């Protein structure tokens, strides 16, 4: 630096136009400063304000400072040291800044408002994601619940179907109960006697029963003449075997009460054998009666 300031005679001053002219305070000093001498005034001022022809006279202050400065400057170790320190600082800061920018800490150089905006964005995104998580969790829970609920509902429906099937005779059943045999050698047991037997058995808690090979259901009818009885239109012959599932003790008691089934059959000349059993199989089946007119009343909720 110490040997550099050398006026170039072929320099074209008009080339030195630069936008910095608008702000002479900042950059003009570099150019205005004309340490080399007053004889450099003309090119210097031209450089200073290239587009306007400036007369040689400079502002008085600068030449006054710089004229004595010229000889000093060349050997001024302080200036050289300052320049060295400044440029060293610049290089240092430059490298540090490049490093900082290059390390991916993109946010470190952002301003507060930008950071706030970014933070808001992130917060909003986080909220959205959290909502999504909550939604998904709810959906998952509902699906799981649905699963277990439908399994439970299916089980209940199955149990219900089985119970109903036993009651209306579409499913074979077994359980404790009794086997009752009505012998009618004289053929005098009437429809009413058999019907009474069925009613008494039901009254005593019979859950399901069959007479001969016919399952007794809700619509079972006993018809015919004594000696030629029909259950649901199917002829049954004496002896009539009635298999009943229910509390064997209760059923037997009901049959044996005075004036009950056993009594009346005996008066008709027949006899009744009752045999309790732990396992009575009622395996005659009925066709499911599909109601032709009746419909479920869903309004009532049943």
């Amino acid at each position: 630096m110490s040997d550099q300031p050398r006026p170039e005679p072929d320099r074209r001053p008009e080339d030195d136009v630069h936008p910095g002219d608008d702000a002479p305070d900042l950059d003009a000093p570099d150019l205005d400063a004309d340490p080399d001498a007053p004889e450099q005034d003309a090119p210097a001022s031209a450089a200073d304000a290239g587009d306007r022809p400036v007369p040689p006279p400079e502002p008085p202050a600068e030449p006054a400072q710089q004229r004595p400065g010229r000889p000093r400057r060349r050997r001024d170790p302080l200036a050289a040291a300052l320049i060295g320190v400044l440029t060293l600082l610049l290089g240092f800061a430059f490298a540090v800044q490049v490093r900082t920018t290059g390390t991916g800490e993109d946010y470190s150089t952002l301003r507060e408002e930008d950071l706030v905006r970014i933070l808001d964005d992130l917060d909003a995104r986080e909220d959205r994601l959290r909502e999504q998580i909550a939604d998904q969790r709810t959906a998952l829970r509902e699906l799981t619940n649905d699963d277990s609920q439908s399994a439970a509902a299916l089980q209940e429906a199955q149990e219900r179907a089985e119970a109903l099937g036993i009651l209306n005779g579409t499913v074979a059943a077994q359980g404790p109960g009794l086997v009752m045999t009505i012998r009618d050698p004289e053929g005098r047991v009437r429809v009413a006697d058999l019907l009474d037997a069925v009613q008494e058995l039901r009254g005593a808690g019979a859950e399901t029963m069959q007479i001969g090979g016919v399952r007794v259901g809700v619509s079972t009818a006993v018809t015919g003449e004594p000696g030629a009885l029909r259950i649901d239109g199917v002829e049954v012959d004496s002896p009539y075997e009635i298999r009943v599932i229910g509390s064997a003790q209760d059923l037997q008691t009901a049959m044996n009460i005075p004036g009950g089934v056993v009594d009346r059959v005996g008066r008709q000349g027949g006899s009744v054998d009752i045999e309790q059993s732990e396992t009575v199989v009622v395996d005659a089946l009925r066709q499911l009666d599909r109601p032709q007119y009746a419909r479920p009343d869903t309004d009532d909720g049943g």
Partner: protein
Amino acid sequence: MIPILGLAVGIVLGLVFDPTVPLWLQPYLPIAVVAALDAVFGGFRARLDGIFDAKVFVISFVSNVVVAALVVFLGDQLGVGAQLSTAVVVVLGIRIFGNAAAIRRHVFRA
């Protein structure tokens, strides 16, 4: 020679030590670097013009940095820091371009 040496040594030191920029300095360091670059370009141009003065260079260097940082600082206080730093960078960039153009004319005569 000294400035080039200083720059080189400074860059090497910065790369070697790799210090963490303090938080309060982070908004101003890039602006200060750009301002100092502008001063360096101006000084280089002045040298090519044959009008270089160490004292003016030092003062313009320091004042450039200080003024640029001050402008950004004021902008931060006023809530327009981002815009003002953009403005400073634009202005300094234009000046650097102008100086670079002048240097180019000196070097390449074109």
